[in-house]
């Protein structure tokens, strides 16, 4: 798929002269974010600039297609490309939204405790959605059951009630930049912690918690 995408990117290169990134690189970025998001148990940092650029690119490509001669074979190939990119984009946003809905109290809590200047996990739209979702669900539970319960039981701690993302789940990953001395913590009591080096290009199966920081810096890619 990536071959087809980069072909397409080069055709449309003249569209985005103001961008430092070529369309091919942009799509690669999107795919990277998409895979990471799909395979990691917790929500990743938001990539709203990539999303915005891709959407712009899609509009450009649609416009270009309008100008193409009728019955041109190239047109249908480009059309297919647009559809594919739009699928990846939607799928990416969907999997973010899915995690957002699944872990909303934890996501909001993390967002609250985030230090000033740290990059936000959520895009403004996602943050608004999460807040609305939280309030809506809370109101609902109150209205249907909680307010009819005895006075000392009228609140539910959402943080405790909604399951947390399981950071100890295992993920497949490919190393993009060589890493040394990664500390792997023991899984059971009779194991001891040990250190591994990750060679560039090698693939591993590890617990997400161990390599979570490397995913956000882009040193490894989940696959």
């Amino acid at each position, binding site marked *: 798929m990536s071959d087809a995408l980069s072909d397409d990117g080069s055709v449309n290169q003249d569209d985005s002269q103001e961008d430092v990134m070529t369309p091919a690189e942009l799509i690669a970025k999107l795919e990277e974010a998409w895979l990471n998001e799909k395979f990691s148990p917790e929500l990743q940092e938001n990539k709203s600039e990539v999303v915005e650029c891709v959407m712009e690119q899609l509009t450009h490509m649609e416009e270009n297609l309008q100008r193409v001669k009728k019955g041109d074979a190239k047109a249908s190939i480009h059309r*297919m490309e647009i559809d594919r990119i739009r699928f990846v984009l*939607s799928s990416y946003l969907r999997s973010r939204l899915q995690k957002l809905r699944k872990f909303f109290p934890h996501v909001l809590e993390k967002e609250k405790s985030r230090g000033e200047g740290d990059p936000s996990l959520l895009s403004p739209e996602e943050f608004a959605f999460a807040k609305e979702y939280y309030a*809506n669900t809370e109101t*609902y539970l109150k*209205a249907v059951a909680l307010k009819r319960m005895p006075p*000392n039981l009228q609140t539910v701690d959402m943080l405790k*009630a909604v399951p947390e993302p399981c950071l100890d789940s295992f993920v497949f990953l490919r190393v993009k930049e060589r890493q040394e001395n990664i500390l792997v913590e023991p899984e059971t009591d009779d194991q001891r912690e040990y250190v591994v080096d990750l060679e560039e290009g090698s693939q591993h199966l590890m617990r997400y918690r161990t390599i979570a920081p490397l995913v956000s810096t882009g040193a490894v890619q989940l696959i």
Partner: protein
Amino acid sequence: MFCEKAMELIRELQRSNEGQLPAFNEDGLRQVLQEMESLYEQNQTDVNEAKSDGRSELIPSIKLRHCCLLRNQRCLTAYLYDRLLRIRALRWEYGSVLPANVRFHMCAEEVQWFSQYKKSLASFMRSLGGGEGLDITQDMKPPKSLYIQVRCLKDHGELEIDDGTVILLKKNSQHFLPRWKCEQLIRQGVLEHVMS
């Protein structure tokens, strides 16, 4: 036994098929709430007695009742929350308008929750990509082909395709059309995707 009723609610959800929404059990909910109320009242009187007369032998039964109260609360919220998850999944399956037989099984508050959820989702999708908007409930599967086989479900009149040909969408006729032209019409229920 305490908490039986609450467990019954949970079992009811468990028994229904994956993703299906059984009718809202208003009666079961009320019974659990009643049980909680009486447990709570008993506890109140016992607590007062234990305090004023110093009867410490009452404390274990107070504790037991309190645990039952907590369990009831937990089961009820689990019941309600799980129903919400099922309703939420329906938004992605049926689109923003739910079929009548599903709505029939929902209570008034659930309908309200759903419409609020719908609104949040819609404003989220509208604001994507710097206000351009993108319907992410579309493109659910990776696109396989440009053209798909569709069947008309109702008379829709003429449709012009990009290359200029005009086709007549008549009820029960079948066409082989570009997918991006049909998506909207399929959503509106004019066309149906024929899987072969």
